[in-house]
């Protein structure tokens, strides 16, 4: 914030001299009546004079009001920190359920990561290999991103650079509404409309497959890519555009010679967040990609993703069983993947702001 408030309405005139200083508001201790360090002594003496003079004429705040304010500010601080707490709690509680299997002697982490054999309920030989699931996630995400990135960025460029204010407003509202469609509804669309389309247009035996899931995920990711991409383009100063126009460039030339290079990081972040959404999406891929745990060989093969696998099997796995713990371990893996993706996106965006 800007300047700190002078403390004229202090609760106690003698203690309240010039608390507006280094401590003003964002210290983590919440102690608001502490006088400042040596630097502000002279100044606070003057402020103290003013405060005392003013306080004499002014009705004092009651102790209760002061206490209430302090309690509220503590609550605000705690709420602010709650996000950190929740993220740590998420990791802790997932990992806590997963840890026993991770550190058990029978468990083979290499098999978990690199074996395509996922037979969690096999009677003779239980195997927990997630490679097919990881490749499922990767392939669906890849299909989605290949479709969504050009369209998303194209739409972002159109919305930001080529259309009039009225159309822009309308498109942004439509895009916002599209982003609000629940994932289970997307899954339902994939299961009914899209799968019928897929079987009609291709010779796929079943409509719920990699292509179908990829298209659905692409449609889901586009709104995110558009809105963040548009923000990135908006962040480029108008002076860049004006300079381009002054040189006689057309809008399109400005876009690909000036704006795209200037907004590169923001556009990259848009793509990354689109990837993050695609990787983490659960219900839509659960319903739209078919249910076969296999490494896909073509676009028309059914696949299962890491997320869909958890959703499909958690209900059947008895609490505390190996199967249950492996599913939590998959969850931990997903948490870490999305953590890295989001962290990268954040660093990329931060790079933009620095500039």
């Amino acid at each position: 914030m800007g300047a700190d408030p002078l403390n004229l309405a202090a609760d106690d005139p003698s203690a309240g001299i010039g608390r507006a200083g280094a401590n003003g508001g964002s210290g983590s201790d919440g102690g608001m009546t502490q006088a400042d360090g040596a630097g502000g002594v002279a100044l606070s003496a003057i402020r103290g004079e003013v405060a005392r003079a003013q306080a004499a004429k002014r009705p004092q705040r009651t102790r209760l009001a002061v206490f209430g304010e302090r309690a509220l500010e503590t609550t605000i601080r705690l709420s602010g920190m709650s996000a950190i707490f929740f993220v740590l709690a998420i990791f802790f509680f997932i990992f806590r359920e997963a840890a026993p299997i991770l550190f058990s002697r029978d468990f083979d982490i290499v098999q978990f990561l690199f074996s395509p054999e996922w037979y969690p309920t096999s009677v003779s030989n239980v195997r927990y290999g997630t490679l097919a699931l990881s490749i499922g996630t990767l392939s669906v995400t890849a299909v989605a991103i290949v479709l969504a990135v050009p369209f998303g960025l194209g739409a972002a460029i159109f919305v930001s650079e080529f259309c009039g204010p009225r159309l822009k407003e309308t498109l942004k509202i439509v895009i916002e509404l599209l982003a609000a469609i629940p994932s289970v509804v997307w899954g339902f669309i994939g299961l009914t409309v899209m799968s019928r389309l897929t079987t009609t247009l291709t010779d796929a035996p079943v409509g719920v497959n990699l292509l179908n899931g990829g298209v659905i995920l692409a449609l889901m990711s586009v709104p995110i890519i558009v809105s963040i991409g548009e923000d990135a383009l908006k962040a480029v100063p108008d002076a860049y555009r004006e300079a381009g126009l002054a040189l006689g460039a057309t809008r399109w030339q400005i876009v690909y010679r000036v704006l795209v290079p200037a907004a590169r990081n923001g556009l990259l972040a848009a793509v990354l967040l689109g990837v993050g959404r695609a990787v983490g999406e659960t219900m839509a891929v659960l319903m739209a990609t078919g249910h076969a745990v296999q490494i896909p060989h073509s676009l028309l093969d059914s696949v299962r993703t890491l997320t869909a696998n958890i959703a499909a099997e958690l209900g059947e796995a008895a609490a505390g069983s190996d199967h249950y713990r492996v599913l939590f371990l998959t969850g931990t893996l997903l948490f870490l993947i999305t953590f890295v993706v989001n962290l990268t996106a954040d660093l990329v965006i931060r790079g933009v702001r620095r500039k």
Partner: protein
Amino acid sequence: MTSLAPGIEAAASPKLFVKTSHVVSKERSEKFAKWLFFAMAVSMIVPLIVILGYLLVRAAPSLSWEFLVEVPKKGMREGGIWPAFIGTLNLVGMSLAVAAPIGVFAAIYLHEYAKDNWFNRIINLAVINLAGVPSIVHALFGLGAFVYAARFGYSIISAALTLAIMTLPVIIASTREALASVPAAFRQACWNVGATRWQTIRAVVLPNSISGILTGVILQVSRAAGETAPIMFTGAVFFKAVQRGDWFPYGPTDQCMALSMHLYTVSTQVPNVKESIPYATAIVLLGSVLLVNASAIALRVWLRNRKKW
């Protein structure tokens, strides 16, 4: 004309203003790019509107007031969606009661109190991450933390708390935006007449941003209503017997049905459902979510037009 020097004649001739081939190709590529991007924007939107229209047509035979207030019958193959609808209301209401105060306070902290230091950067990162964690991971967390560790069991409380944590970033993000729209000069003026930080927030910042904050809360509602994965393993069930039109069928420790979960159930788990029922369920869910969102957008547009600064 003939008396003029050749150079002047050339200058006067309209030929000079004919576009050079360079300009022509430049303009052509401009036009092409514009239409291409327009097509890209439209091709993302039009098919969807067609799809939604198709859903609506397929749902039409079942859509009626009866469908909303009737309970599912014959193993969910016929009847309505009342218990799911009420269950969603319960879940959303309870998650809102938890998420709204924490979210608004967190946003106030981040925008009004926090300085730009490493600690607050970590908080920001945590908020971003919370938004990015896959919904199924939230479900695992809810199961591990609320159902088992906190011993709430499979219940509305567990599901609502999971939803609350999941939707917290929505409230934080839009509340921050609302707070940021209050000019800094308003705060400075308030400080200058001697108000403390909290007095400034209460008397100046909040009244000027309350509608924006409300928008964020509305968006949280729509997000929470649509989520399926987080409630699937924490408190939502396939079926629960409820009286027709009963407004309070669930206690906080009961399991409940939910619209999103019901859509998943009737479209994938139950065989031989009446054709139009899944479509109608999808339309009711989609309709409520979009309606809630549209009202948030309308509120925002109205606010922007009314703003005096």
